[in-house]
């Protein structure tokens, strides 16, 4: 179970990104919403949702949203989740958001996500407003009925309460060392 409850403050981090720069939660003080997604390369659920992650960042960037993906998986057991492979994936899929490497799993231990992908959406004050899945259909983007993250973003950006602040996670388990 995640270590954050709705209304909790985001846990800070400083992690290396695929651009070879250090990224910090504090880099985005002017953002109206920040979405931290625990992600990885190998998980087919992430791969099914990846394009939608890019689309969401693209659609909401102009409204002051920043998505940040973090890979915390054990790369020795899952070599597809290695840092070089992360760089390749970000390039191939044209990630328009930071993709960060939690090599020691320190940030994963702090947040305690269970799955990839797993979304933590924070408001302007970095308070958690939504936790869960990106939407309700990993298999077919055209068959999505509930756009959980988009709906949560719309609410947060409008200063309203999120109607479904927690949703069921679907994805691969975090690969702990």
């Amino acid at each position, binding site marked *: 179970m995640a270590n954050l409850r709705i209304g909790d403050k985001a846990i800070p981090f400083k992690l290396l990104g695929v651009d070879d720069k250090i990224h910090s939660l504090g880099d985005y003080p002017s953002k109206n919403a920040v979405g931290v997604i625990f992600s990885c390369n190998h*998980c*087919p659920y992430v791969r099914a949702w990846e394009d939608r992650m890019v689309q969401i960042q693209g659609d909401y960037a102009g409204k002051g949203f920043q998505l940040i993906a973090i890979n915390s998986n054990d790369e020795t057991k899952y070599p597809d989740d290695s840092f070089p492979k992360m760089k390749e994936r970000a390039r191939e899929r044209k990630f328009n958001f930071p993709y960060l490497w939690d090599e020691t799993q320190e940030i994963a231990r702090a947040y305690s996500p269970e799955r990839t992908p797993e979304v933590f959406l924070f408001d302007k004050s970095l308070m958690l407003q939504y936790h869960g899945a990106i939407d309700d259909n990993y298999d077919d983007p055209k068959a999505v009925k509930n756009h959980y993250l988009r709906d949560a973003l719309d609410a947060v950006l409008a200063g309203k309460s999120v109607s479904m602040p927690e949703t069921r996670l*679907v994805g691969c388990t975090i690969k702990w060392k």
Partner: protein
Amino acid sequence: MKGLDIRFLYSRECPSYEEALQRLRQVIKEEGIDPSVEVFEVETREQAEKLRFLGSPTILIDGQDIDPQPNPQYALTCRAYRLEDGRISPLPSVEMIRGALRSAIEKRS
């Protein structure tokens, strides 16, 4: 048709196995095939190697993976299927399952 050896292999860590099994059973029913499916939960790397488990879910028909890989790596992991439209999914498509069943039937006739 009777006699196809259909095996469904899964790992409990991957959440969509029940949906995949349901999908397999549905296609078997639509094709009028003997509905017997052996279901195996794969729990160790040794089992993954022995059962030729490419990840969850894996469907073998007469010993043949429905989506054979050129360099198979047997592992306890969730499996990524490339669908007909190029997308990646944790589930094989109905078309992939149906195609594999029909191909197995053809080989037998």
